[in-house]
């Protein structure tokens, strides 16, 4: 018996019991759909995290003040006023690997423009900020050096603030007030979207560092020229870990910290955050993969079960086929191909559903549709293997039937 004939015959048998065949396929369908969807969703999520990290700056190290002990009480990270403009400048000047070193102050403010107002965060920055964050001015211009240094009363708006305060109107040239200080809007930033922690990165008003510190965010920092954080961008191709070490050494030296004492600052880099994210994504993937695995095994058992029923039901047909010349191998092949065909059809349906889920998820979540053809092919081949393995025993039983007995069956 040739393969084509066996295949046609098995398709006929599957069609004859359409509902039963579909129910039998279900396990395979779910398993394969889970695998395809899981991989696509995983890839999409990772791609988005990567894109977010890229948006934030991949080789970014953030320096924040560390803990200080005040009257016996240890305050939380970031509260100390130990980082200054001078630290930022020193990092830039003394470490060659540093491309940009942006001191930042920030605080929540109410921005008023004419009749409308909006609560947002004000961020005081210098020009390095735009380099460090890879963030460009969409319309208008950014701060001139003089405005940064001397504390000009100019502001750049994020897209969300523009929308909330000006609606569709062009804000450039308009005046906004923050804490009763008037600022001229000189530009609008490009849209940056959500951060990977879900915050709206466009809900922001950027002010020159000096102005923000002295007149907006709070006076306490003004005295010692302290900042909330320093955003450091390491040059492309430089070793991040080595640069981090250098930065630590320099800051310890500048802050006169003796050997054996803790740092009064801490460094965060995006790679670590990325690694954590990937770890949790991997855990999720393993979980889904085991669900898929269990589903495929159950699907295989289902196929075996139905094939055993089918062999029993069709004993007479097997007898007839043997009478007209089917060899044991032909009978075996027929049932094996039938089981495999069921599994492969299930696999195809599963692939279609999986891709469907991936497309819907990608559209909903707004990340690119990433379907790995290798995964699709592997899933297809694997469902075929499940068919072969689970069809083997029923096919073996069919092939071993005695023709006389089989013909006598009801």
């Amino acid at each position, binding site marked *: *018996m*040739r393969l084509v*004939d066996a295949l046609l015959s098995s398709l*006929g*048998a599957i*069609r*004859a019991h359409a509902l039963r065949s579909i129910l039998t396929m279900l396990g395979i369908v779910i398993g394969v759909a889970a695998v395809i969807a899981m991989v696509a969703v995983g890839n999409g999520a990772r791609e988005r995290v990567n894109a977010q990290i890229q948006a934030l700056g991949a080789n970014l190290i953030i320096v924040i003040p560390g803990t200080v002990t005040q009257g016996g009480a240890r305050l939380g990270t970031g509260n100390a006023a130990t980082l200054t403009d001078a630290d930022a400048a020193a990092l830039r000047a003394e470490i060659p690997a540093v491309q940009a070193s942006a001191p930042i102050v920030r605080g929540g403010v109410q921005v008023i423009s004419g009749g409308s107002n909006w609560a947002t965060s004000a961020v005081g920055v210098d020009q390095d900020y735009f380099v460090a964050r890879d963030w460009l001015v969409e319309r208008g211009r950014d701060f001139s050096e003089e405005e940064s240094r001397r504390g000009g009363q100019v502001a750049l708006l994020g897209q969300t603030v523009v929308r909330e305060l000006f609606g569709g109107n062009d804000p450039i040239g308009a005046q906004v007030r923050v804490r009763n200080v008037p600022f001229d809007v000189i530009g609008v930033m490009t849209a940056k979207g959500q951060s990977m922690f879900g915050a709206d990165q466009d809900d922001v008003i950027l002010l020159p560092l000096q102005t923000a510190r002295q007149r907006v965010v709070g006076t306490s920092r003004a005295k010692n020229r302290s900042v909330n954080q320093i955003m450091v961008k390491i040059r492309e191709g430089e070793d991040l870990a080595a640069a981090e070490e250098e930065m630590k050494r320099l800051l310890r030296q500048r802050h006169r910290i003796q050997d054996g004492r803790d740092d009064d600052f801490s460094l965060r880099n995006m790679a670590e955050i990325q690694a954590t994210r990937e770890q949790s994504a991997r855990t999720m993937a393993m979980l889904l993969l085991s669900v898929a695995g269990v589903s495929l095994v159950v699907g295989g058992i289902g196929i075996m079960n139905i094939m055993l029923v089918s062999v029993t039901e069709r004993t*007479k*047909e097997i*007898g*007839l*086929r*043997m*009478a*007209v*010349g*089917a*060899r*044991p*191998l*032909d009978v075996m092949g027929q049932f094996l191909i039938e089981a495999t065909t069921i599994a492969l059809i299930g696999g195809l349906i599963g692939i279609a559903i999986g891709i469907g889920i991936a497309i819907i998820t990608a559209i909903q979540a707004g990340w690119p549709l990433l379907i790995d053809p290798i995964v699709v092919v592997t899933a297809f081949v694997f469902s075929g293997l499940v068919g072969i393995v689970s069809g083997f025993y029923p096919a073996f039983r069919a092939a071993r039937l*005695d*023709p*006389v007995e089989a*013909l006598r069956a009801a």
Partner: protein
Amino acid sequence: MSASPLIEVRDLERIYQMGEERVVALAGVSTEIAEGSFVAVMGPSGSGKSTFMNLIGCLDKPSAGSYRLKGQEVGVLGATELARTRNREIGFVFQQFNLLQRVDALGNVELPMIYAGIPVKERRARARAALERVGLADRMGHLPLQLSGGQQQRVAIARALVNQPACLLADEPTGALDSRTSLDIMALFQALNREGVTVIVVTHEAEVAAFASRVIRFRDGRIVSDVQQVPRDAAAALAEPAEAA
């Protein structure tokens, strides 16, 4: 006769072991069947005629004795060779027709050729020819359920003929048919026999056996009689006006 007979059995035995019990289905049968003959195998149920047919049809292997089909000893063949022998040398016709229900007449007739590995085109052509030969030229695309009992049995006969076997083996071929359709089928067998096909019909009905030229009777696993006779002509019987039963 100088040539070896088509079928030659010597001291053929078939014994089943049913738990503790030994059931002797065939207790030493010897006979020969020449090519081109029309033989009826008769006997009550349990006489061994079905066992004999299973052995002749290469569905089963003897416990002892020898069976030569066209001079080839069958007892030594394995399952695969037995299947090939059934495919090429034997054409089975069953009481219940045993057609595949989801396949049309043409497809059913093609089945033995599928196992013979014959290419599709030739298969189609030969299946058509076989169906025309049994008078079903206009029913090739019909499913078994759309055919009458007699037509289904004709499909089965076409299927049995299509590989040009050495002999046609019919097990109660008219058992599920009314008397007129039975006559029809027997007339077909006689026509085929006149064309040179060897026909062996297993039956317990004397009316059916009347159409054969030789009748072998079984009882308790042995041949009790073996007679030549002048067969009744089924075609002529069909032509006669319907008699009162």
